[in-house]
């Protein structure tokens, strides 16, 4: 065993710690739940915690690894949520067993979000910095707006689609509405469980961590650090940028699937799929450490749990987030403060940070 452990290099070790962390949290939570120590309020938070963790990890792929600020992440989540919920409603009872149908729904959500990520990425990734951020925000809002005007129904003649109103679908009396414009989708099967959420987090981590430490991941990070230098050594900029962006979108889609199947009603509101959500995910990523995958999960979990634990602070939640966001940026960009902090950190941790900045 000890020989085996020594053979593992640093990144593998770090990855294993991340996986182990998730698994241990899962075991502890399961023990607490079976012991009856978890309130129903907390139980209701378990699946959203998984959703936020996946979102934070996937956004970190765009912001931390690719180095582009995306403010439309909730849009991809929205696509994943609505496509998979539609799929689940259409195939509910047709595809058995339910677990298999949910697996397909996850794939549907991921594939659609990934395709949209690719389609949106082609124009968007030509832009840089602020422009890219504002265009991703625009796309996110467009997706939310369009979802709100879609009407989809099914009757004996097949599937009807309209963007005007329910009446213009021209359905039979016994037809069933699937998407009702601003009212969204109701009666989605609630398949999401904490266990599935944890498995999806592990899958997300597996995909992202393996990507980061692969040849492609190194190419993506090379583009982030110096685009021109990366291009001059023969890295295909467009290909790797699109790869990172669409994988990030697909994973956000997975989070959307989990979100959609958690509650039986799904509506696209500014609160859940608007840019407020995108910014909240960004807060998780920034506070967890840009480019630090494990940090994203920790930040997502802590920041979702804390306001629930300290009920009285709920009104101040967003205010505190914003202050922390500003303070983090100012402190981490101030050499003097950072040097002071580094002095207190053990040398082992401080060293790689220095190497990276060079």
């Amino acid at each position, binding site marked *: 065993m000890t020989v085996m452990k020594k053979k593992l290099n640093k990144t593998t070790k770090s990855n294993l710690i991340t996986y182990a962390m998730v698994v241990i949290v899962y075991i502890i939570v399961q023990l607490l739940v079976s012991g009856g120590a978890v309130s129903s309020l907390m139980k209701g938070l378990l699946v959203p915690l998984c959703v936020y963790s996946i979102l934070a990890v996937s956004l970190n792929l765009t912001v931390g690894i690719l180095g582009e600020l995306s403010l439309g992440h909730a849009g991809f989540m929205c696509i994943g949520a609505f496509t998979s919920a539609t799929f689940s409603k259409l195939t509910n009872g047709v595809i058995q067993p339910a677990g298999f149908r949910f697996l397909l729904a996850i794939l549907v959500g991921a594939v659609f979000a990934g395709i949209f990520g690719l389609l949106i990425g082609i124009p968007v990734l030509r832009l840089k910095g602020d422009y890219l951020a*504002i265009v991703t925000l*625009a796309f996110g809002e467009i997706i939310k707006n369009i979802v709100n005007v879609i009407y989809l129904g099914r009757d004996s003649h097949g599937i009807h689609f309209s963007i005007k109103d329910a009446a213009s679908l021209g359905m039979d009396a016994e037809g069933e509405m699937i998407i009702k414009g601003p009212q969204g989708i109701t009666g989605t099967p609630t398949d999401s469980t904490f266990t599935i959420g944890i498995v999806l987090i592990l899958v997300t981590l597996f995909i992202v961590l393996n990507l980061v430490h692969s040849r492609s991941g190194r190419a993506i990070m090379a583009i982030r650090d110096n685009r021109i230098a990366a291009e001059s050594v023969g890295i295909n900029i467009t290909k790797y940028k699109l790869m990172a962006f669409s994988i990030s979108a697909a994973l956000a889609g997975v989070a959307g699937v989990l979100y959609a199947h958690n509650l039986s009603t799904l509506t696209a509101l500014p609160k859940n799929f608007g840019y407020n959500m995108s910014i909240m995910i960004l807060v998780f990523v920034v506070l967890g450490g840009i480019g630090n995958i494990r940090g994203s999960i920790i930040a997502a979990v802590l920041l979702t749990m804390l306001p629930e634990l300290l009920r009285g602070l709920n009104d101040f939640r967003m205010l505190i987030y*914003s202050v922390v966001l500003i303070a983090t940026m100012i402190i981490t960009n101030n050499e003097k403060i950072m040097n002071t902090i580094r002095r207190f950190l053990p040398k082992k941790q401080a060293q790689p940070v220095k190497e990276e900045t060079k």
Partner: protein
Amino acid sequence: MQFISYLINGISLGSVYAIIALGYTMVYGIAKMLNFAHGDIIMVGSYVVYIAVSSLGLNPILSVVISAILCLVLGVVIEKVAYKPLRHASKLAVLITAIGVSYFLQNMALLIFGANTKSFTSVVPAVSLKLGSLTITAETIVTIVACVIIMICLTLFINKTKAGHAMQAVSEDQDAAQLMGINVNATISLTFAIGSALAAVAGVLLCSAYPSLTPYTGAMPGIKAFVAAVFGGIGSIPGALIGGILLGVIEILSKAYISSQLSDAIVFGVLIVVLVVKPTGILGKVIQEKV
């Protein structure tokens, strides 16, 4: 006739966007940063006028002036506290900070004023001009006139005064400007001051036309005004005017003729098309003269 009425409404809304876009475009030209919090300064300005008029019973004109001064101070303070320490930081860091400031203002307003919608009393007397079947409200006229006056004053300020020349120099090359003895920090503060005061005026005009005030009132117009600034060519003052008015007209016409739910999507669609086809905007060539 109806079309002309929509067109005038569009120009009026566009004028508001243009005034907001000026703040974006000036700050972007000089500090090279997207001031995400600009839209929320609109909201702060509107709340100040709301309180001054309905709680303190002040004269509307006086309250607009008070609001402009308060926002001017707010803009300078934000710049000093949040943006100045990040002058040489990465763009990502600055943008995230700006988002943080935007959130801070929104949630401060939420705590102070509550989430309830306040109905804003228009600062403009409720008279209207009738031309046959066409009715133009006083708000529309005041908005358009205010926009034109602001544009003329700002252009004169930038081209004729010493401070204006300093702004042009800083936007051209910050280091060279500093070597020529221009106080770069003061110039950037001045830009934030002007932009924020204009935002207050824009807020009053916006809320006079659309009289519902919430802590989130400023966010969407702010983003749309940024779209307008990009549309017209960021950094250019005439560009902000053209972009703003075009965007206002597009928004009102698509609300009237296509779908009111999709109008935001159409506005953002315009932004995407502009950025993909001509990333420098309509007046993009003038970008060397950006302010």
